[in-house]
Structure formats: C-alpha cells, structure tokens
C-alpha cells in the first residue's frame, strides 16, 4: 500500500438556507476551493468520490448533479453511502483508492441542502415494520439512549450544556460555520426549549446547507504539490446492527467507535490518545454524544467525560482541543459533515486553521457517526 496524504481542502459558507446556489453550484463551490487550495486543476484529478444522503433533498440520484459540480464528467465517480458516516467513509474510500495505486489523485466532495427537501421525513423513512410505525427521526432515536447513559455514567445536563457552549464559541472563530454564538452561556442552553428529554434545542445540531471537498494524493504527488501534507496514518470503519433495541447499552458501550478508535490507535502507534493527539474533530450530533465519545475514544475512563469538559481539557486552550471548528453542533450539512471532520483535521496539520488553528498540531483524529451506531475513525499526521 502506498502512502497517502490530503493536500487541499475547501468548504462553502454553511448556512440554514443557501438558496443563492443550486445543488451542483454548491458542490462546485467546495470542489473548486479544494482544488485552489491544492493548486491543482480539474484535469489533475483522476477520480471523484461523493457523499450525500438519499431523500434529504427530495430528489433521486443526487450524485448525478453533485458529480457534475465536482468535475466528475468523464472520470471514475461513485457515491459512498453509510448514513452520517458517509463523508468519513468517502474519504476512507478515496484513501484506499490512492493507496492501492489505482489512482494518483482523488477528489472527495460531500454536500447536503437540507433547505430543499424535508429532512425529518427522510429520517423517518427507517424500517417500516418496527421503527417507522412506532417512532422515528434522529432526535427521538438519540434522545432515547441518553437517559441510560446519564444514569450509568452520572452525566448531568449542565455538563452537556458546557459542550454546547464550547461548540458555539469555537464556531465563532470558523468563517465557514453555520451557528456562531460566542456569547452563549450554560444558563441559556439550559433554558432553551426541550425537544426530547433531556435534549434541548441548544444541545442539538442544526440542519445546514453546505459542501466540503478535499484533494487526496499519492506520496509522490503530495511531496511535489504540497509543502505540508496531512498524511493518512490509519483508518477504520465499523458497522452495527440496525435495530435500536439490539444495540446493547448503545451510548455507554459505543462498541463501534470504541473498536474503530482502538484499531487506528494501534495502527498509528498511539498509546495515550489524550496525551499524544494534538487535536480531534469528532462527529457529535448532540452534546451528550460528545461526552459519550470522549469515553469511547479513550480520552478518559468511562464515567470521566463530565469532568473532562468541566476542566476545559477539550477546549481550545486545553490539552486536547476537540472540534475547534465548532463541530456538527454548529454546522451540519449531513453528507458533508464527515468530510468536514476530516478536512478540518487536515487543515490543522496543514497549519491553515486561521483563528481556529491549534498551535503546532502534528497528530489529529477525525471520526464519523452514522444512523444508530456506525463509526469511522481516521488519524492524520504531519509525518507519514
């Protein structure tokens, strides 16, 4: 397998509604930005990988239009679909394609225009016999697992609110972010409207319009084209059973993310992730998820997540800044959200994070989360 690096990233401005652009125009905005960042032209790209949800845009074959915007005409192009993990999975697929020697360069583009379709309807079209007939949608299914997690691990609503404050404060330093609230307080989060107990409005990710792209290159191409490539050190993806009732202690165990992270740590030679990682961009659809992921990712012992956020360990000036971008809690064009995690991690290694740059970041983790428990993990480094 050849060494692979990310040599350029690009994002649109993410917002609740981008009706100034069509779907292919939005995709092109991100794809062109990534090519400009890599100082490449469309003709330099060998293959294109796309990430996007079905049904959220109320359109069949969204990849046809996305491909058009991603300079894919006349090139090998395919969509990767693994729910919320689609974006991270598309990145991993691109890494594999280049690592295999099949292509020297690949362009990954994830996009979503939630404002054009009806996301809750799309989300509700899960299993027709067991889920759809009873209850469905992202909010309800996630909230359903939180009471179990809070009870077992002693996590409080206030600790979750601290995650929301961190996310929206960090997002204020990210020019691409959708929700930016540098002044938001824990009290405001706790006073926000209850959606599904214990999840309040400010605990939840938004629905955004946006796209994100990156250029993946072989070692030879990366060394030629990029002064500071973000090298792909390890990747892992884990599927899970699709029926919610089958997933034993879903958030407490988070078996998929636990396994995927242990696999990438082992492959990248990471023994103590909290001490060794410089930055993490994790896919947290809701505040409580970020706390559960700290434990699954081994940033602390099980039961230690509340203390981690209270002590500021994961804030911008902490030992391991988590989601300098503001995370999914601040920006969520779902098909792009996983690509954004990997791109933001790469941006940190590239040293191009601007106001959200973690000084001297050399080792970064990005994760994806999809549907009920699907998980991806990617480790990027300044050294191959």
């Amino acid at each position, binding site marked *: 397998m050849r060494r692979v690096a990310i040599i350029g990233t690009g994002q649109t401005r993410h917002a609740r509604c981008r009706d100034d652009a069509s779907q292919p125009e939005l995709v092109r905005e991100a794809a062109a930005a990534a090519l400009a960042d890599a100082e490449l032209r469309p003709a330099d790209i060998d293959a294109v990988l796309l990430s996007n949800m079905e049904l959220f845009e109320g359109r069949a074959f969204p990849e046809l239009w996305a491909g058009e915007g991603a300079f894919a005409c006349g090139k090998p192009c395919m969509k990767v679909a693994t729910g919320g993990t689609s974006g991270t999975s598309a990145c991993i697929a691109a890494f594999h394609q280049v690592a295999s020697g099949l292509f020297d360069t690949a362009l990954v583009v994830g996009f979503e225009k939630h404002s054009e379709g009806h996301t809750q309807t799309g989300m509700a079209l899960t299993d027709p*016999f067991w889920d759809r007939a009873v209850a469905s949608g992202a909010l309800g299914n996630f909230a359903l697992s939180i009471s179990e997690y809070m009870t077992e691990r002693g996590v409080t609503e206030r600790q979750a609110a601290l995650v929301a404050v961190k996310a929206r404060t960090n997002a204020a330093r990210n020019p691409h972010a959708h929700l930016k609230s540098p002044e938001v307080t824990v009290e405001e989060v706790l006073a926000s409207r209850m959606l599904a107990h214990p999840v309040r409005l400010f605990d939840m990710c938004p629905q955004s319009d946006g796209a994100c792209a990156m250029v993946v290159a072989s070692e030879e191409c990366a060394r030629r084209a990029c002064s500071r490539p973000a090298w792909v050190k390890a990747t892992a993806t884990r599927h899970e059973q699709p029926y919610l009732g089958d997933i034993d202690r879903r958030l407490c165990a988070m078996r998929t993310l636990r396994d995927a992270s242990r696999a990438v740590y082992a492959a990248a030679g990471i023994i103590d992730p909290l001490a060794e990682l410089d930055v993490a961009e994790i896919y947290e659809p809701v505040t409580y998820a970020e706390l559960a992921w700290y434990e699954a990712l081994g940033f602390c012992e099980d039961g230690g997540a509340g203390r981690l956020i209270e002590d500021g360990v994961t804030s911008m000036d902490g030992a391991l800044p988590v989601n300098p971008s503001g995370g999914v809690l601040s920006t969520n064009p779902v098909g792009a959200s996983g690509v954004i995690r990997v791109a933001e991690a790469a941006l940190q290694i590239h040293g191009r994070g601007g106001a959200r740059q973690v000084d001297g970041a050399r080792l970064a983790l990005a994760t994806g989360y999809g549907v009920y428990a699907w998980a991806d993990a990617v480790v990027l480094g300044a050294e191959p």
Partner: protein
Amino acid sequence: MIREGSIHIPFTYAAGRAASRFLVVLRDEGRILGSPCPACRRVLCPARSFCPRCGEETGEPVVVDPAGTVVSFTETAAGVFGLVRPDGADTAMLHRLLPAGAKWTIGARVRARLLPERTGSITDIEGFEPLEATEDHA
C-alpha cells in the same frame, strides 16, 4: 428562482419469514415472539430470520413474556418512547410507554398493552404500561 412541490411515495414492503410470523401471531394469538440464535444463544425480539451479530439463521421462534423492563426512554411532545426488554428476550423493543404523564425510570417494570382489534402491525401493541397498573386490572 425557487420551485416548490411535494412528493407522495406509496410503498409495499415484504416483512420476510420471521417478521411475518411475529406479526401474524401477535394479531391472531396476542403473543410476542422472539428468535433464538444458535450461536450466541440470545433470544432476539421482535423475531428475526437471522442473527445480525452472528449471521446464523435463527431457530424455531419462542414466546417471550409480555412483561419486561425499561432499559432507556425519552419524553417528547409526541409521547414517551422507550426501549423495553421483555422477560425471556435478550434484546429490547422500541415502543411507546403509557401513560405519557407517568413518572418513568430506568428499570421500571412494564407490560405490553394489546389492542382488542389487531391488524398484524407492531402497533397492535399500543405500548407498555406499568406492571402494577395491569395487575390492578387483573
């Protein structure tokens, strides 16, 4: 320029072998079926044709208890939803907890409340209600 429209999508899904049997037995006998996995020995409920974890085809379905334990729950504007592990099963079922106004806790003991007229749907179970309430009515 913005174009507005809407889409109506009809569907007809096959339940498959195990789920069909689960739904027919629920409708006709008012009983809840689970499927034992020959590999991991777990009883999966609702009934399944194969174990998603082991990949093995499940054995002859077994009847699980209508009584069970609340594993987790959430309260929403649309009602209270919970994961309930029926006695005799090793997995939980997603369903409504009734009544919505009750004080719910993890570990609460509940029992399935069935509709008198059933159609062969998971909603033939109206939801799960506190075990004490059903005992009072018994």
